[in-house]
């Protein structure tokens, strides 16, 4: 039984982590592409159109990867988490089915038109198809997060005698207080990722001294979008989410922040420290007093409940993993703001393009928004444990009753092998596209 849960969780964690690499780029990138297309419509400068089409190639590779790794996600609810599907399908089936019908369809129908249809339909229509692709990808995020929000903070349900959750208020699914902040935070984070990617491509061109015209354009767009989005990720959206966790999942909040003991006269914010689960304290702690109380409740001396006030089984089952995920996300987010502020300052002073160390930094930071996004996702998912539906349905009660751990291990290994191949292909293809650049006439 223990094995079964472990392999099921590992498989879901692995497949969704790999999947999430792709939509987080496509969601943000579609915004930048629409922006470039709009600039082109207004100015008629060919450069913007070429830049948009070039980014679209990267988008398309990502989109394919997102689709082929996304279809397994829907299947896995049934294959590996059958009991969960049976009990909650009447509710999260709504949001997942809507995702398929309203957003995925929009995105994939118009993507083909956007890529192949420019000459068939003229610039205005082409812009509109691009905009619809953007709309589809963001709507997709909305429905997926609505699903997740329900698992984090269940609303609009009733539980029947046979244990099934059934919907009794459809509107509640979308007015879930968990949803909007989570959605905005997530979308801003995806804009951060794509801005860093675009800026890094720009930095690469400028440093290599090829396609310099486009390099400068990408740097400029990447830095401006990156600065705005990384600020918005922290405030107000990140802050709003943290408050939500404190309100709806206090045990998870205490674990995230590393608060072992309730402090009555205002809680400190932990910058660095390692959770020591044996002695129930943080080792090597560096903390600033009272800040956490202020950030959470806008009162310097407000009490924050620590892990000592919860029963063992109410606490997330892996406190260190949760604590580190959260701190890595916050730490990286802070670095992003710093780097983007600096880059923006030099952009404004017209020195950015010659500032090699900063360009190298931007280029090498590319993996980190991905890491920040993934650890952010882990934070919210680990915080929900040991529940699948917070407070109502235990993870251990959600797995498929007839699928043995051997089968799950076998399919997990299969996914690992297949996804390694996909990852390699992805890097080769994106690398090739970037190397050819927006000026290339091939394809």
């Amino acid at each position, binding site marked *: 039984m223990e094995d079964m849960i472990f392999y099921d969780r590992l498989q879901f964690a692995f497949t969704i982590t790999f999947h999430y690499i792709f939509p987080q780029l496509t969601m943000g990138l579609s915004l930048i592409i629409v922006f470039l297309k709009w600039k082109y419509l207004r100015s008629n400068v060919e450069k913007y159109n070429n830049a948009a089409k070039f980014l679209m190639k990267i988008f398309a590779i990502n989109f394919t990867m997102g689709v082929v790794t996304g279809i397994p996600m829907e299947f896995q609810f049934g294959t590996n988490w059958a009991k969960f599907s049976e009990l909650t399908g009447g509710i999260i089936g709504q949001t997942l089915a809507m995702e398929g019908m309203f957003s995925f369809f929009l995105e994939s129908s118009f993507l083909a038109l956007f890529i192949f249809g420019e000459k068939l339909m003229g610039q205005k229509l082409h812009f509109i198809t691009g905009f619809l692709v953007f709309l589809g990808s963001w709507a997709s995020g909305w429905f997926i997060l609505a699903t997740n929000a329900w698992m984090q903070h269940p609303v609009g349900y009733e539980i029947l005698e046979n244990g099934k959750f059934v919907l009794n208020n459809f509107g509640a699914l979308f007015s879930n207080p968990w949803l909007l902040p989570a959605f905005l935070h997530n979308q801003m984070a995806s804009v951060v990722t794509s801005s860093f990617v675009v800026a890094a491509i720009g930095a690469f061109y400028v440093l290599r001294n090829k396609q310099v015209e486009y390099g400068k354009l990408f740097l400029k767009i990447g830095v401006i979008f990156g600065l705005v989005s990384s600020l918005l990720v922290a405030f107000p959206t990140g802050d709003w989410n943290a408050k939500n966790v404190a309100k709806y999942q206090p045990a998870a909040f205490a674990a995230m922040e590393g608060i072992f003991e309730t402090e009555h006269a205002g809680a400190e914010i932990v910058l660095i420290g390692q959770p020591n689960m044996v002695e129930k304290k943080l080792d090597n702690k560096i903390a600033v007093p009272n800040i956490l109380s202020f950030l959470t409740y806008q009162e310097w001396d407000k009490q924050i409940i620590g892990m000592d006030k919860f029963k063992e089984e109410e606490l997330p089952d892996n406190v260190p993993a949760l604590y580190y995920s959260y701190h890595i996300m916050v730490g990286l987010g802070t670095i992003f703001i710093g780097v983007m502020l600096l880059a923006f300052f030099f952009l404004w002073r017209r020195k950015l393009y010659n500032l090699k160390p900063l360009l190298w930094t931007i280029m090498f930071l590319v993996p980190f928004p991905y890491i920040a996004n993934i650890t952010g996702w882990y934070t919210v998912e680990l915080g929900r444990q040991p529940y699948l539906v917070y407070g109502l349905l235990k993870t251990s009660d959600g797995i498929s009753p007839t699928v043995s751990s051997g089968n799950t291990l076998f399919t997990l290994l299969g996914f690992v092998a297949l996804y390694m191949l996909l990852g390699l292909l992805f890097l080769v293809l994106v690398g*090739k596209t970037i190397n050819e650049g927006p000026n290339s006439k091939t394809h």
Partner: protein
Amino acid sequence: MEIFWFIAIAIVLVMFFILDGYDFGAGIIHLFFAKKEKDKEVITKSAGLFWDSNEVWLVAAGGMLFMAFPTFYASVFSGFYLPLIIVLWLIIFRAIGLEFRGQFKYRMWKDIWDKSFGVSSLLLALFFGIALGNIVRGVNLGIVKTGVSAHEPHYFFLPLWDSSFSPLSQNPGIIDWFTIIIGLISVVTLAIHGANWIILKTNASINNKLKSVIFKLNILLTLLTIFSIVVWQIVNPNSLDNFINKPYLLVFPLIYFTGLLGTFFIRRIQKDSHAFLLSSLLILGGITSSLASLFPVLLPSINNVNPSLTIYNTTTSEYGLSVALVWGIIGFILLFGYMIIQKRLLKGKIDKMDYGH
């Protein structure tokens, strides 16, 4: 309300097999008949342009099943665990074959992805047919051993095959001689459909030859169909009851046989779109006849202890189904709308089209 959702899901499934069916079929034809580079290229393009928007119908069907019949979704997806996961892997191989073949000009690179696209299309067509075979045959629900269920009555787990390979054994596996017949029917039908699509959408040099291929495949399909109807009676003796009690359901087999007979005149059919329509009728008729013979059962139980899964005992609340009806109708209009816009804008032969690159 359950009946409405049953019909809605049936429509989405039929749409999926008609639309993605042609690119599965194109893959099968590609694997066996495309020898020249030019043909390989236009055939992959004729599938590659559309596969992702076709696959949405699968995602939509999955989502709707999940929402409307969660118990069925849970039971079937965990019960057919291994083949479903293999299907997922095949879908991935097929998609990357289609998308990435053209990225490099090397011979070997293209060969690898051509095979990946062709073989996984073939296997997927086979697997989907086998899946249908399993559904109409029924499974040992609850895994009954010596009169007692090993699990809750609606859960089961099927091995890939049982040593007897017989659909009549107590706990038949996923692959037995009956499901293989249905699998072959699926492969042949989709190959015909894919060939029609290639004729419709491309100017491949093999297009003239394909008509005689279709003719031969149609003879094979007719034989397989007759054979399957006979053995169907042995495997599931109740399978004709619905048609006898509600004769209007015979319209579905009639659609199938129209497609089957019509395809014999393939060489005389002037318009390529009419031929494509006939193979679409084959798919439409085949799926709807199978579903109609089961209705209202979704998955028959072959033991006497546990009841079959029906649209009534696997569903969710009336409220949930009725709200979903509202957005479902809007969704359907959009789905068909997008599809029509897309197919109209990208109409005509693939190889003559200017892609704007």
